[in-house]
């Protein structure tokens, strides 16, 4: 007969005021498997724990039921206490009689007491059938894969690489840099990305521990924390990067010149053979096979003739590389809502209505106009510009319910930079609320309003249309209650930020989740904002939600710290509550395989029996419920254990 000890906590009066502790002790003691039952005012206190430890040793208890608060609070406390005196921690179970009994049933003490007794007895039935378990040790690979080469990915890569980890930085375009590389200057200090981002890009490009996989995408990820296997697709560049010197001759000779440049967000064109921007890392050219005349029609071929390095050969050089990875950081960033929305603001129809990120290119010294502000339609200098905030943000009926967070600041910055470029220009900003809640942010906005004389109008715009060469803006000023019609030369829309395209497909390859808007989901919004629910996969930057550069870099370093901590040991320890298969009962039907979301259980082709991969199993118990022959079980959640708990509840006690 097992010797179970039951310890009932009063939790001051939290439990004892409702539950009749004496009655509980009396009834529980009558159970044949209970060798000892005792109560104490605060079982989690040091004297409480000493009391339990003493009884384990004194009475040789081989299982404990701790009747107290929820297991989320003190399960670990009592398991550790038991382990210290030699009782296997997995022989300790919690019977929750506080959150589940004394608190929600304060007005019914008698029935609460009955419920507490039954919960304790059911837990006794479970624990007497528990087996001793030991932490599972899994070896780890000391490398990190970072998906996305924007400022978040670059920062995380540098941090991990400096800590001695091998880093694979995977970027789907041909250069790292991300959205930040396209910006003109950055708020609130007005540094240009060439000054602050380019050095980091170069550093990442030259770091001995970082390998940049540019123009590459994730094909497949399998494995588990500490031991992922990733297949990375190096997309066809049609240029041998081992020979390419980045001289740019192919760009100057390529005759296909009218392709909207992704880097310039359509504000300028690029060629079919191209390097996206001068500071690109790696500084290598690619040929865009959707536009190259040779690849499409077999005509042209001029770049191959002119390339001094003889790097061009028009063959599909797609390559799939397999990598062994210990941890993954997802830093896929954000985009703005596509142009096909916003008919009411004329976007996509009126050339002088542009998005915020497009206007960045018109302000940038590295942009198509070399920093001169010009209307896309006719190249004239706009004398009046209306900036419209919250376009598609904070608009649950039509677009996105959330605040896109960075628009107030970058609109203020853009209005300011416009005024610096066009001294006699007038900038109008339509806003709902100004959200400037960062260090130096409010001061920055005040400067735009007071020193730069940007005119802020509180209200939303209903319609933007073109009329005789001017752009008409209809809106309201909600402070005066007046209807406003402005005739301006340009309109800049602060369009809603959205998650990067393709992130949903990537998330399902990684077995992580996205929210309804496509933002990657963190394990806990406040307390685990960097982790995902899949162990070993972390989030950095705007992939999780819109972030400005400061927050992005902070979170990237946070994600890197998590990855570094994870990979700081040679082995990982995992909770041993996982599935196991009774080899005698298993018929090898493979039904369990179809259930498991982790690929952790599979029929061995040699033995014909299902086997569990200890490293992969997350311990959900789904296979056990699914197994037709009853061979699969979740350790310490066996069918007989649950049956006996049920019987306790329906019949009061299990008849032995």
């Amino acid at each position, binding site marked *: 007969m097992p010797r179970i000890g039951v310890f009932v906590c009063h939790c001051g009066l939290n439990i004892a005021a409702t539950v009749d502790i004496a009655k509980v002790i009396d009834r529980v003691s009558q159970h044949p498997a209970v060798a000892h039952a005792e109560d104490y005012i605060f079982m989690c206190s040091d004297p409480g724990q000493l009391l339990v430890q003493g009884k384990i040793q004194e009475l040789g208890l081989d299982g404990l039921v701790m009747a107290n608060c929820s297991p989320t609070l003190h399960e670990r406390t009592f398991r550790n206490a038991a382990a210290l005196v030699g009782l296997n921690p997995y022989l300790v179970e919690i019977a929750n009689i506080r959150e589940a009994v004394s608190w929600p*049933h304060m007005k019914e003490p008698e029935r609460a007491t009955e419920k507490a007794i039954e919960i304790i007895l059911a837990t006794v039935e479970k624990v007497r059938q528990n087996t001793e378990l030991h932490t599972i040790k899994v070896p780890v690979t000391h490398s990190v894969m970072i998906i996305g080469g924007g400022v978040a990915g670059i920062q995380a890569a540098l941090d991990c690489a400096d800590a001695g980890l091998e880093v694979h930085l995977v970027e789907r375009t041909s250069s790292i840099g991300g959205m930040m590389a396209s910006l003109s200057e950055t708020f609130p200090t007005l540094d240009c990305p060439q000054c602050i981002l380019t050095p980091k890009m170069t550093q990442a490009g030259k770091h001995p521990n970082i390998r940049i996989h540019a123009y590459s995408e994730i094909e497949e990820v399998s494995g588990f924390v500490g031991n992922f296997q990733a297949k990375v697709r190096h997309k066809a560049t049609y240029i041998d990067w081992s020979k390419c010197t980045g001289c740019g001759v192919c760009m100057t000779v390529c005759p296909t010149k009218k392709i909207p440049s992704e880097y310039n967000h359509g504000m300028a064109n690029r060629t079919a053979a191209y390097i996206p921007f001068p500071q690109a890392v790696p500084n290598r050219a690619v040929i865009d096979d959707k536009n190259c005349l040779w690849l499409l029609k077999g005509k042209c071929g001029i770049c191959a003739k002119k390339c001094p390095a003889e790097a061009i050969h028009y063959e599909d050089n797609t390559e799939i590389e397999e990598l062994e990875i210990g941890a993954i950081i997802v830093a896929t960033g954000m985009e703005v809502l596509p142009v096909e929305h916003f008919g009411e603001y004329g976007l996509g129809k009126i050339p002088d209505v542009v998005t915020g990120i497009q206007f960045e290119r018109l302000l940038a010294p590295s942009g198509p106009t070399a920093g001169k502000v010009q209307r896309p339609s006719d190249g004239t200098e706009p004398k009046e510009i209306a900036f419209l905030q919250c376009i598609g943000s904070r608009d649950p009926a039509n677009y996105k319910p959330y605040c896109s967070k960075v628009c107030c600041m970058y609109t203020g910055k853009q209005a300011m930079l416009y005024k610096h470029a066009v001294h006699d220009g007038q900038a109008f900003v339509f806003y709902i609320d100004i959200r400037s809640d960062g260090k130096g942010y409010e001061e920055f906005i005040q400067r735009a309003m007071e020193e730069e004389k940007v005119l802020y109008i509180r209200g939303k715009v209903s319609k933007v249309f073109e009329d005789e060469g001017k752009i008409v803006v209809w809106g309201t000023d909600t402070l005066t209650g007046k209807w406003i019609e402005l005739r301006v030369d340009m309109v800049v829309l602060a369009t809603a930020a959205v998650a990067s395209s393709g992130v949903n497909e990537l998330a399902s390859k990684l077995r992580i989740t996205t929210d309804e808007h496509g933002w990657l989901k963190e394990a806990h919004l406040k307390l685990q904002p960097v982790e995902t629910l899949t162990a070993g996969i972390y989030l950095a930057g705007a992939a999780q939600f819109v972030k400005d550069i400061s927050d992005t870099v902070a979170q990237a370093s946070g994600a890197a710290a998590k990855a570094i901590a994870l990979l700081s040991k040679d082995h990982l320890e995992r909770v041993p509550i996982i599935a196991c298969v009774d080899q005698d009962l298993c018929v090898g039907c493979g039904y369990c395989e179809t*259930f498991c979301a982790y690929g952790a259980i599979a029929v061995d082709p040699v033995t014909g029996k299902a086997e569990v991969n200890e490293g992969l199993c997350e311990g959900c118990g789904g296979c056990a*419920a699914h197994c037709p022959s009853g061979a699969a079980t979740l350790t310490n959640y066996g*069918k007989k254990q649950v049956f006996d708990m049920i019987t306790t509840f329906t019949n009061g006690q299990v008849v032995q």
Partner: protein
Amino acid sequence: MTDKDRKGEGKAAAGDDFEPVIVGFFCNWCTASAADLAGTSRMQYPPNVRPIRVMCTGSVDTSFVLRALLEGADGVMVGGCHPGDCHYVTGNYRARRRLTGVIKILEALALDPERFRFEWISASEGAKFVKVVTEFTEDIKRMGPSPLKGL
């Protein structure tokens, strides 16, 4: 008086003093946390539900539900994560599909399928937990004791 006698007494007769026995299987990551939250917030609900914490509703075997009902439980409730929120990716979907079959079996046993309830209750929905448990208890009271009781 043995436990069995005591229980039998309370449960034999229908009517105002009938207190149903309800077994609840609650997912560790959501509904069990919602129950904790309800408790911490001192929300009050009838004590009829006897909770069993499971790692995932996907681990709730059909036989768990049937066993409880065959042994005389008046109702069985399963609480899991909302669609798309499963801690184990798809366990809750699998559970729903599997446990929908329970309803057919209950019909074959001439048991009211309303004695079985499957609910999505997230960790933050303490109030929903209370509402569901309260309503379910009242529904079962209205249905009266399980006809399988005492068989």
